[in-house]
């Protein structure tokens, strides 16, 4: 096997670096993916199993049987010692340190077993009820729509507005450019978290509180986006713009027929970032929206957090559900980034 790989690499001298590379990447897959896989598996666990220690990879539930004479299903245990050793029996009730057990084939005879002599019979089962509950409990589709609307519209606005600004800042010489750039970098420094209250009050003055636009508009002009796009646009040769000007293109046309397509890779990156920010945003929507019909998935997800308790099973299920769309979008856009980056090397 080792020979096979090194031979196909063709360069005997470098073989250990290849090995190291693949080892690194393999470890990376484990480290990057493992925790998420754990999350997904956990979302199929019952609340009890979630609290179980040591935690187990797969979702287990204890087996139950329904026996004649008992209304509720009974938990099944495996007895390890005593006269019933080796048998699977159902527990009727437990009193102190002693369990009252019945054999499934003889549901009327109660046998007393010390609790130390029994262990639960468990099997792997997906608690899909975590997911079903979500749809029963609230208007999942409404939240999905709100989240999608905010994400799509906000990303479109961000891309448009940021790319226009980046175009101006990268391809024009004009008075005040330095000041604007300084302003962009300056506001890049101030995270939204520290200006929540002023931002809230300003948004309120525009009458945007409790509207989806109140979530969309304030974050649309991201300094990060302007910075990223500008940095990329600087690499587009000015001569191409001049050529377009000679070709009678208006500046606006140059922007959308030349600059936009040529910045596609950077725009794809910003699109992914913006989609993620908007989809995952929690703090600002929490402040801007307080009425359920406007809620996003992230807000709905967090309503499983009460004062004292958190409904982990539902929260995890919801988390996994909210992950699906971003992953799908990424799977789609990442190809685009790859081809975009590859084709700009066309010089």
């Amino acid at each position, binding site marked *: 096997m080792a020979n096979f790989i090194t031979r196909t690499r063709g360069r005997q001298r470098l073989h250990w670096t290849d090995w190291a590379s693949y080892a690194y990447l393999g470890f990376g897959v484990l480290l990057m993916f493992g925790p998420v896989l754990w999350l997904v598996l956990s979302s199929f666990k019952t609340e009890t199993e979630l609290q179980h220690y040591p935690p187990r990879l797969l979702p287990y539930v204890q087996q139950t049987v329904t026996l004649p004479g008992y209304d509720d299903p009974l938990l099944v245990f495996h007895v390890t010692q005593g006269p019933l050793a080796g048998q699977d029996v159902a527990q009727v009730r437990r009193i102190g340190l002693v369990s009252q057990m019945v054999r499934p084939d003889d549901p009327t005879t109660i046998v007393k077993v010390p609790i130390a002599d029994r262990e639960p019979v468990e099997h792997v089962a997906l608690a899909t009820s975590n997911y079903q509950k979500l749809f029963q409990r609230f208007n999942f589709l409404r939240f999905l729509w709100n989240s999608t609307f905010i994400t799509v519209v906000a990303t479109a606005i961000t891309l448009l507005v940021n790319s226009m600004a980046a175009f101006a800042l990268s391809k024009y010489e004009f008075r005040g450019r330095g000041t604007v750039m300084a302003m962009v970098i300056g506001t890049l420094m101030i995270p939204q978290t520290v200006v929540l209250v002023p931002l809230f009050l300003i948004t309120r003055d525009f009458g945007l509180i409790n509207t989806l636009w109140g979530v969309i508009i304030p974050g649309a002009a991201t300094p990060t986006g302007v910075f990223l796009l500008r940095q990329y646009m600087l690499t587009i*040769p000015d*001569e*191409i713009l*001049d*050529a*377009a*000007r*000679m*070709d*009678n*293109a*208006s500046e606006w*046309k140059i922007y959308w*027929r*030349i600059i936009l*397509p*040529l910045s*596609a890779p950077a725009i794809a990156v910003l699109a992914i970032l913006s989609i993620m920010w908007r989809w995952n945003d929690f703090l600002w929507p929490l402040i801007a929206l307080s009425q359920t019909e406007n809620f996003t998935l992230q807000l709905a997800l967090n309503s499983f957090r009460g004062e004292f308790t958190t409904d982990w099973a539902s929260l995890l299920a919801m988390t996994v559900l909210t992950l699906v769309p971003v992953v799908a979008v990424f799977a789609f856009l990442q190809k685009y980034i790859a081809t975009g980056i590859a*084709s*700009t090397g*066309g*010089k």
Partner: protein
Amino acid sequence: MADLELRGVTKAYGAAEVIKGVDLQVAEGEFCVFVGPSGCGKSTLLRMISGLEPITGGEVRIGGEVVNRRGPAERGLAMVFQSYALYPHMTVRQNLSFGLENLRATKADIETRVTEAAQMLQIDKLLDRRPKDLSGGQRQRVAIGRAVVREPRIFLFDEPLSNLDAELRVEMRGEISRLHRRIGNTMIYVTHDQVEAMTMADKIAVLRDGRLEQFGRPLDLYNAPANAFVAGFIGSPRMNFFTGRIAGGAVRLTTGETVALPGDTFDMAEGAEVTLGIRPNGLHPVDSGSGLSVTVTGVERLGGESYIYGSTQDGTAVTVHSPGQTAIEPGGAVTLAIDPAEAHLFSAKTSKSLRKGAAS
């Protein structure tokens, strides 16, 4: 088609003046080359004509109209860029038709003009490719094609051949000349290569430091350069220059030799500091007699002709063109006779030509 006129055109970036007042007239249908060393302002001047660069002072007239305030699109020009500046995300066809679409030409019109231009430039088979799939020469043709389809009043070329290899450059040179003959438009062509200028131009404008040094037909520039700079820039190999002083109606070089020149051709004020210029073919190795003694540092034998490189006693480099083959070897000494008819004389102070009746 139109003529072009520049009147006192200047360009300044803040305090730095890069074009210092250029006057120029290019007649309709002329092929005019702007030539000069890098940084002389030739490309800036071209961009000012194109409208890409705003004009600080003076007037640019195209077809008699002042176009200073018009944008590039409204001047009816087309330009071929040094890097070709093809739109990387468009096919060749889209590259060619983009400008026409902007002019709101009809689809049918675009189609015929693109096809015509593509055939003319032999790129009709490449129409559906993208620029990255083309060779350098093909890209060059597309860039020219993009200008051709526009049917502009004036073509502008900004060092279009500098990215090509030597052979391709010669080929494209011919092709652009043919194109000019065929469509007959006014063309302005910027290059730093004087060979391109000599071979292609109807008129050459030599620029230095934002000033027009001389403007005229190629051979006029060659035969009667207005100053030492033009003399040195036009012609290959470069003209030889020797410093000296007028003494007794002749030029006494700093190395001691005296060169007699016909007094009716040049202004020769006694005692004036001068620069004597002689093209390599104005020097001939002689076996005996008076002349410039030179140490030979190298010989190039090309078969039909030879170049001899050497230096005078004070270290001035000398190049000699000798028809046929020569027996001179590097390391030896040689005496060079100067052909007075081939001599040029410049004032050392102003570097202007001292030829009588020379345009100053």
